[in-house]
């Protein structure tokens, strides 16, 4: 066989091999890292604005809080409550710091340390939950634990673990929709393995080519019959936000 011919066969074989190889990879289930990256891609934004409604249910009691929220990346967020009882109450997050402004007292309170574990306005969302906006793929090492059908949707089940300092829930178990790569259910565990909270995504919206979770339910597993549903309306992804919004001065504007 001539050298030119030999080269052609080798090339053909290589292409064939690469082709089969590619076919073989695409037939495999995506890796845990891939799934988590696609989840992050759905959830992560540079800026966001939404109007929210938080329904807090504790036993037979139920209360509703409404709010407007602005956020930029994972470090800046501003929430203004608009329901009559809390109208004017504002919350500012700058990196790891959180402040709350109470209009009746005209007082600003810094919330830090263990106080961040308390529920916002008596809800199942702790300040910590609200502040936590980092990409899951940067915080956790993930593994695929299997597949399950949840609410009629095929899901990947992911096990997330982290030994990093500052990660509030060292272990999570997530049910991720195989088609849309949105989290349908999440279980948040303490270091000891105790289940602390369960989150459910009850609704999503399609925005700028992504499936964004718009109705989220949190339930504190250390309380019986306790849950909080956050519904986000009028969501705007990547709007332009005045930098002054993320400052303490914005409390008194």
């Amino acid at each position, binding site marked *: 066989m001539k050298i030119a011919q030999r080269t052609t066969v080798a090339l053909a074989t290589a292409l064939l091999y690469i082709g089969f190889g590619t076919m073989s990879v695409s037939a495999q289930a995506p890796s845990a890292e891939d799934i988590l990256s696609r989840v992050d891609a759905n959830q992560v934004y540079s800026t966001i604005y939404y109007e929210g409604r938080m329904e807090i249910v504790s036993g037979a009691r139920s209360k509703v809080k409404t709010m407007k929220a602005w956020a930029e990346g994972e470090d800046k967020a501003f929430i203004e409550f608009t329901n009559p009882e809390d109208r004017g109450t504002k919350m500012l997050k700058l990196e790891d710091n959180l402040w709350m402004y109470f209009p009746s007292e005209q007082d600003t309170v810094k919330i830090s340390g263990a106080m961040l*574990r308390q529920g916002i306005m008596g809800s199942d969302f702790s300040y910590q939950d609200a502040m936590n906006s980092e990409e899951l793929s940067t915080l956790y090492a993930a593994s695929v634990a299997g597949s399950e059908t949840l609410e009629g949707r095929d899901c990947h089940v992911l096990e997330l673990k982290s030994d990093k300092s*500052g990660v509030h829930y060292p272990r999570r178990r997530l049910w991720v929709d195989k088609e849309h790569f949105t989290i349908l259910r999440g279980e948040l565990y303490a*270091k000891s393995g105790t289940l602390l909270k369960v989150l459910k995504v009850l609704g999503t919206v399609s925005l700028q080519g992504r499936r964004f979770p718009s109705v989220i339910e949190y339930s504190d597993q250390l309380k019986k019959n306790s849950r909080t549903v956050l519904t986000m309306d009028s969501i705007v992804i990547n709007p332009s936000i005045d930098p002054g919004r993320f400052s303490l001065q914005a409390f008194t504007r």
Partner: protein
Amino acid sequence: MTKTLISIALRNVVRHWKRSLISAIVLTVGIGMFIFFDSVLAGMDRMTIDSMVQFNDASLKVMTKEYYDNKRTMPLTHGLSQAVELATEIELVFPGSSATPRTPFMAFASNRIDSLPALGYAIDLVTDSSVFTLRDQLDSGSWFSENPEGGEVLIGKLLARDLGLTQGDWLFISARMTDDSLNADEYIITGILDIPDMSLNESGIFMSFTEAKKLLGEDLPVTTIGVSLPRPANLSKELSDSIEASAIIEKEYKNIKAVSIAEAANDYLAMRDMKSKYSMLIIFIVLLIAGVGIVNTILMSVYSRIKEIGVLRAYGMTPTHIRRLFSIEGLLIGLIGSSAALVLGSLLVWWSVRWGIPIGDYFGSLDMGVIPIGDGLRGEWHPGIMAFGFLFGVAASWISARIPAAKAGKLEVTEALRFV
């Protein structure tokens, strides 16, 4: 002449005994209650400070300056390096003192139905009782076992009540670890503490350092050292001793903040000062009423005895003698009233010191902040205030009598004799 005047004044006080008695009773009740209320307030102050010293703040608390700046959030950072050695050194510097490490932390306590915010304390099971008196406050159950099979905790009585738990039940505790991640575990309630400090009673959870390290991280630091100093006879000395000791420690150790009980109780003491101003105002009003009563009594005495005054003047008494006579009458009423007040006040103080006022029966479930009311309110003997009350009563009576006495002194002989 003075002897004669005293004799006449005494006779007049006895002769007009009803009026004299009314004035004396007003004084007795006013000053007696002043002595009693002062004793109760002083007792309340001492009990409050004692409660803070015995259960949470000690005579003084040692921490790093960084921890002090952030102590509101009870961080698990900024711990004391070589805490055991530091505690031993402090004990040597202040004879009769004891020191023990404690790391407070914020937690949530749950019975799986409800979850309540709680104040956790990691304590040294060996040395804690030498500074704090938790062990004496067991309402049910027992102190920590020497070789526990599982995690054991002691909790406040009101926290147990709010969660519907009793001794032997399991309590779920969740808290932030030293690395900021969350941890949670179940603990058996080995004892329920009935602590006079309401904040600890309704949210206090106590566990050994060994268990706390399992929950919060093996690198859990000692963030505070509680130091108890010998208990002096009165509150002022107790406060000044703690301030002095704190200054010595801060001078001796760099980057250390020693929080004296006087500083820890600063808000309460400021409130007490404000309160004492109001109580002095009330006492002043009571004494003013008594004073008006005395003025009225003597004035009536003057008018009912104008003819007698005329006769006395005719016998050669000068206006000064007449003024003195009525002043002595006021003084006698003051002496009788104030002496009776001393007896009444002493009896009430003795009762409150001996038996305590059972206000816990009425206000036991009411949150009175740092004021411990669960165990009855005990008064405190205050000899200085008792002497002040007595002298004030006598002086007030004498001054009150000066007004009608001056009027009597101005009466002319003929005018007085013609008076109908």
